[in-house]
């Protein structure tokens, strides 16, 4: 039995588990309707306006930085598996790639993108 098949089985198991839990909960639990109960929870006072609004850009900056470094990690993995066989030459080759990335991080650092303001 291959890993892919087990993976599919596990994924289906997860879906079935959530569905079963929700159905069992729905069957067992009491149900009552109340206009106040469906409101968003907020310390007893009604919410003003919608919560789907524009948000602080600070989070967006970090998401962008994350994207850069995550793709970097993805690109480094194939190299990492054969570092042993490549030897010193492989490190020289990857050093250039890393240098560009570190420059990117240094630039973001100097620009103050890593500060939370």
């Amino acid at each position, binding site marked *: 039995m291959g890993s892919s098949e087990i993976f599919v089985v596990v994924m289906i198991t997860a879906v079935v588990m959530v569905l079963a839990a929700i159905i069992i909960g729905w069957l067992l639990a009491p149900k009552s309707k109340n206009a106040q109960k469906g409101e968003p929870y907020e310390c007893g006072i009604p919410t003003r306006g919608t919560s789907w609004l524009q948000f602080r850009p600070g989070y967006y900056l970090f998401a962008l930085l994350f994207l850069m470094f995550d793709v970097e990690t993805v690109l480094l993995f194939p190299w990492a*598996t054969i570092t042993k066989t490549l030897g010193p030459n492989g490190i020289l080759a990857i*050093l250039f790639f890393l240098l560009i990335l570190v420059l990117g991080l240094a630039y973001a650092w100097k620009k103050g993108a890593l500060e*939370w303001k």
Partner: protein
Amino acid sequence: MLEVGGILSWIHEALSSSCPEWLTLLIEYVLIGVGFLALYALIALILILLERKVCAYYQCRLGPMRAGFWGLLQPFADMIKILMKEIIPLLKNDKFLFFTALFLVIIGSLCTFGALQFSKDLIGIDFNVGVFYVLAISSLGVLGILLAGWSSNNKYTMIGAMRAGAQLVSYELSSGLSLLTIVILGGTMQLSGLIEAQSETWFLFQSPFTWIAMIIYLIAGHAETNRGPFDLPEAESELTAGYHIEYSGITFGLFYVGEYVNMFTIAGIGTMVFLGGWQPFHINAEWAAGFNGVMDMIPTWLWFFAKAFGLVMLSLWVRWSFPRLRIDQLLHLEWKILMPISLLNMLLMALWVAYF
């Protein structure tokens, strides 16, 4: 004798001798699913009791004592209680995304859990790009958390989800880079291959840089489970409960269970890549042959669970010892301290591997 491999192959043979091929496969698939589900639920129950007891002892309390002997039935009581609670029908949320988030969180959690290797022959998902798979599938949880916060249409959940998103994606980098360091040392991405490479000595004792990688991995992994000093996505004194406020009854219970099992999964992956997974502790010397023989007699699944629960206890210790960080401190720790160190550590490890 104490290994599970014998039982598994016995089931396989008994099935294939008495059923047609397609039925054998079907029954085996169902058995795998039920097995994973049972293990998942069992570990969640153990962890819930452990957390409550350990937390109580750190605070000089006794913890749950009434349900069963020494409170041992407490998690079952919790489970029944949470199943009997109403799933409140909300009026203003996005219903489709609200429930999709739940599925994403549990799929991410269970599929990462499936990649653990509990013993020598109890191996679930073992791709040849195993480390990659673990990193990829575990980030489904982030999506689920972001969706949960957004679809609830509540300001607390929104702030909680945004904080969780920033925190989880940031700390994923460090944990990814420390796993990368181990891939450089092990020379393969397959998790069983990595464990195989530790049959003589664990990775922890193969290179000094593994220690740095392990410490960074443990910090980042701890942050990824939203616990302890890094629990600001669900800081109860600021956001009441963060991204899952609007989830009630069993829908909240699933978030809770997912989070607990994630803690175990992080510890389990840490065990597999740093502490040798199910490999017994060996001393590589002539005089230690007897000692190694005794270590080999302990079943491999016991080794795995002992190491993994050791790391879980470490995580509980950290959780109950440190005050919560602020978001600027959190991002400072990741981007200006852990990230440069792990990049440098990776490079040093590559040099070590190339020259030694």
